[in-house]
Structure formats: structure tokens, C-alpha cells
């Protein structure tokens, strides 16, 4: 009886979500993939025609996209190390019984709640070689040690701009990873390291031989998340270099995300933009799967 009456809830409860999701997420996905096979653009070709793989062929010949892929991979790999090593250390530190633990945690996490544009602009101005706190310091060091790029500002030099943007985005985002890793640490039952300690293991041994293996599942999931997120990066480059010279100087910070934006909303190459977005999706999917498989170890039950 009750079960039967309950079934009446299914349709009204599911309807709003199904309609909204289908119209505003699912249909656009299909549309993007479909229009990627046309010649639609804002300069003349306003009625789309079937063009097959033409746009995808253009992508393989586009040195700019190759450059964007290179920069995105740089961000994924170098940024990954720069996020996970400190985040792991920080999460471990925050799981020790400390005085002022909450205060430290607050300050490590605080940037997470800021908007990307606040964080991006803060760093853009901090890095300014004339007015910024970090920029003037770097300029001083650059002059003293005769390092060229530092004295003209890290965001103005092709060799340092991407690193400066990665630093800003890590300052902003690391809190989430610290939190997620620290949730992982909390899952480890305290008896396990405790009994190792009784058996005479040192802190160092406990960390490498017990904590890290027990954390492996968590690390794997987070690295897959990182790959997906890093390859979609857009906002920090846009805020810190745009809108006139997005990805500048000289495309040295142009990422896949900013390149898609430029082609679509800057150059009105709509079909090309959609083909790029589709390519991006496939790459993100493949790379996250590869990462997932490559990091797979036998799960340790605890």
C-alpha cells in the first residue's frame, strides 16, 4: 500500500531536475559535439553546413593549440607537484595535536573562499615590479643577482609568467586539497600507527611505511581530480593577463581553456571553438582514465 502510494512521488520529484538538466546541460553537450562537425562561424558563415572533420584537421595543424596543450600540461605536472607536496605536508601537520591548530587551519584555507578574480588580482598587483610587495622584492633580488626576468616583473616575461600564475592559483586553491587529504588522514584508525610505534617504528618509518600506503586510495582519487581540474584551468590566466592579452606575454600562458575562449568569443570561430572543446573533453577523459589506471594498487583493507 505505502509502496504504491509512494510511487506517486517519483514523477513530480524528478521532473524539475530532469527538465532543467536536459535543456541546459545535456542538449548543450550534444550541440557542441554536433556543431564541431560544421563550418559555422561569426564571420560570414552564419548558417552552419556539414563539414565533416575539417575543423578537427585544422586543430592538428594549429601551432597555437599545440602551444596551449604544452602550457596546460606544464600546469598539470609542475602545478601538481607544487600542490600535492605542500598539501600533503600541511594536511599531516594539521592532523597532529597542536595548539592554535584551528588558527593555522583558518589561514591555510582562507584563500579558498575568495573569488578567483580577487585572488588573481591580488597576485597580479603583488607581482607588479613597481608597486607590488613581491614584485619589488623580486626586482631587488633580480638586480642584485643579475637575473633578467625578475627585474621586468614575473608576469611580463615569457619564462616566468606561467609559473607566477601557477603560484597564484595554488595559493588560492591549495586549501581544498589540504582538507581532502586531511580527511584521508582522519580515516586511518589511530591503532595502526600506535601499534607500529609500540613495535619500535620511528615517526619517519610510520609515515612512509604505514601512512602513505594507507592513504594511497585517497591520493589516487585526488590526483585524478587534479588532472581533470588542471586541464580545464582558465580563470587565473584570464584575470592576470586579460582581457587584451589573454595568455600573454606572447602566448606563454595560453592554456587550452583560454584558447577555446579566444577562438570562440574573441575570434567568433564558433565551430572551431566547439571542435576544440570536444577535443579537450576527450583529452581530459583519456588522461584522467590513464592516471586512474596507472596509480591503481591493490587496495589495503582497514
Amino acid at each position, binding site marked *: 500500500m505505502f509502496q504504491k502510494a509512494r510511487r506517486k512521488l517519483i514523477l513530480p520529484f524528478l521532473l524539475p531536475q530532469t527538465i532543467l538538466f536536459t535543456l541546459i546541460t545535456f542538449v548543450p553537450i550534444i550541440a557542441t559535439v554536433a*556543431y564541431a562537425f560544421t563550418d559555422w562561424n561569426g564571420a560570414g558563415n552564419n548558417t552552419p553546413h556539414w563539414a565533416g572533420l575539417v575543423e578537427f584537421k585544422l586543430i592538428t595543424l594549429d601551432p597555437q593549440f599545440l602551444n596551449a596543450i604544452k602550457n596546460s600540461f606544464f600546469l598539470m605536472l609542475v602545478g601538481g607537484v607544487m600542490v600535492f607536496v605542500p598539501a600533503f605536508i600541511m594536511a599531516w601537520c594539521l592532523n597532529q595535536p597542536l595548539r592554535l591548530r584551528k588558527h593555522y587551519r583558518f589561514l591555510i584555507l582562507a584563500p579558498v*573562499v575568495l*573569488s578567483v578574480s580577487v585572488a588573481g588580482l591580488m597576485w597580479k598587483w603583488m607581482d607588479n615590479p613597481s608597486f607590488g*610587495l613581491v614584485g619589488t622584492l623580486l626586482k631587488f633580488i633580480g638586480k642584485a643577482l643579475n637575473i633578467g626576468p625578475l627585474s621586468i616583473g614575473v608576469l611580463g616575461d615569457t619564462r616566468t609568467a606561467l609559473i607566477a600564475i601557477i603560484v597564484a592559483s595554488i595559493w588560492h586553491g591549495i586549501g581544498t586539497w589540504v582538507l581532502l587529504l586531511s580527511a584521508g588522514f582522519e580515516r586511518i584508525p589511530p591503532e595502526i600507527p600506535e601499534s607500529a610505534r609500540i613495535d619500535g617504528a620511528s615517526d619517519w618509518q610510520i609515515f612512509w611505511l604505514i601512512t602513505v600506503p594507507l592513504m594511497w586510495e585517497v591520493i589516487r582519487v585526488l590526483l585524478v581530480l587534479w588532472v581533470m581540474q588542471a586541464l*580545464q584551468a582558465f580563470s587565473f590566466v584570464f584575470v592576470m593577463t586579460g582581457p587584451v592579452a589573454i595568455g600573454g606575454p606572447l602566448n606563454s600562458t595560453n592554456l587550452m581553456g583560454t584558447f577555446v575562449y579566444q577562438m570562440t568569443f574573441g575570434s567568433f570561430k564558433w565551430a572551431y571553438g566547439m571542435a576544440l572543446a570536444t577535443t579537450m573533453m576527450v583529452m581530459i577523459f583519456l588522461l584522467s582514465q590513464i592516471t586512474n589506471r596507472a596509480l591503481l594498487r591493490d587496495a589495503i583493507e582497514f
Partner: protein
Amino acid sequence: MATSSTTLPAERAYVPYQRPPRISTKNLIIYVVLTFWILPTIFAFVWVFAVSLKTNREFMGVPPWTLPQIAQWSNYVTAWNQGVGTMFQNSLLIATLSTIASVAIATLAAYPIARIPFRFSQALLSYFLIGIMIPYMLTAIPVYFGVEAFRQWLLKLPIVMQLDSRFVLIVLYTVAQLPFNTFVMTGFFRGLPTELEEAAAVDGASPFRAFWQIMLPLATPGISSLTILGFLYGWNEFFYALILVKDQAQRTVPLGLFYMDQQAQYTASWVGLFAGMLIAAVPVLIVFALLQDQVARGLTVGAIKG
């Protein structure tokens, strides 16, 4: 392994208060590492605060590490009146309404998927979860053209209607969060004991009342985590606002600050930008300071499967 998202408050393990040990070498190293990491954050905030109280002349002429000679509190008033106030109200409105709508719609959808057996329930959940996997660039271009077409269509109506970009953003932020919210709420509802609704039915409650008065209150921890997360998303979102907001008066805080930075190059008014940045940052920082544990739980909800 149960995570915070699927654990009822009553089941949470009791953790006795541990007295922090005295300073040892290990702890000393930990303090040094943590302090080293947070120093840039402290300097960054202090510096932005200091600049926001300077005059433009001071900002240009004096080394950046100096403090303002006379604190120019009027910078805040000027910034607020020159657009930051409007941006602030827009962001507050958009973030609040989209969060409420998204959490409500996703909670409704998650309940039957998790608790009422019907055909295709698993398929439907997988369908919604597509939304978590795909990059936002993939939906952005058709969404942009859809909104433009709608805008044009509204103008052709006998009564001329302007499409409010704030309304567009509310709808988009709502939809953007649906897949994740559904994922979390489905997990949450599945974690609740099966006897609950049956007991309610025995007592004569209608199915809707069983949901409304029994299941929903039990789902509060999940709902509150998603509310915090949703508000942060709405308050901070940049990309959709960038491509969809046309009218200057309808800009959100992240978008408006971005344009303020662009204009500062021409108007030579930098201190207003810094005051604006703090006006945008301080409310969320205060909320975070007050609700630190809830925000922390919100940020980790659903990320690590139990």
C-alpha cells in the same frame, strides 16, 4: 568506511579532548613549516588592506611596504558608491537564490532515486552524473547562443522585455550545481535506515509527509554542507558571468572587480580597486571564520567516496 556525508550526527565517534603535548623538536618543525606557509597569506592580506587605505599618490610614489600616512577610510565609501555596492547586492542575490533552488531541486530528485525502487533509477542517476564529468567549456558555447536567442526573442514580444542577466545567472548556477548536489544527496539518503519511512507509514503518515517531516530533517547535515558550497560557488563564479552579463549594472562581484582592474589603468584610481577587493573578500572570510568546521565539511563532501 563512512564519510561525514553519510554519518548521522548521533553516530559520530566520541573523541575525547587531547591535551596538546609540550613543545618537542617534532612539534617545533611543524610550527615552523606551518608558519612559513601562512606568512605570505598574512602579508598579502595586510598589504591589500594597507593599500586600500592609501591615496593613489601614495600608492604610486611610496615603496609598497610602507603603511598609509593617514588612513583613507573614504576609499571604501567611494568604492561602494562607484559600483561595488551594486555588484555586492547582485552577487548576494544570485548566490542565495541559485543555492536555494539548486539544493531544493536536487534534494527532491535524489529522494526517489535513493529510496523508492523503480526501473531506470540507476540509469537516471548516471545520466545526471554526466554533468560532473564534463568540462564547463563544453556547455558554454550553446548556452551562450541559447541565452542570446532568448534575449532577441523577448525583444520581439509586444511588451518589450529586457532579459535580466542576473536571472540568467541564477538559472545557470542552479543547473550547474544540480549533478553534484544530486550525487551527494543520493548518497546521503541511501545511508539512512530503511525502516524510517515504514514506521511513518504505520503511524499513518502520507508518503509526502514521511519525506517532509522525517527524511528531510535527517538530511540536514548534507543539505547544510551543500548550501555552503553552493553559496561559495555562486559568490565566486567567473566564467559564466564573463560571457553572459551584458549590462554593467548587473555585474557580479568577481566580474565587476575584473572590469574595475581594467579601468584602473585609465582612471588612475587603484586604491578603490583594493577597497573593492576587500569588500568582496571580508564577508566570505567572516562567514568562514564563524563556520569553519561546517565549511571544511562542505568542501570535502562527496569528494572521497565512503
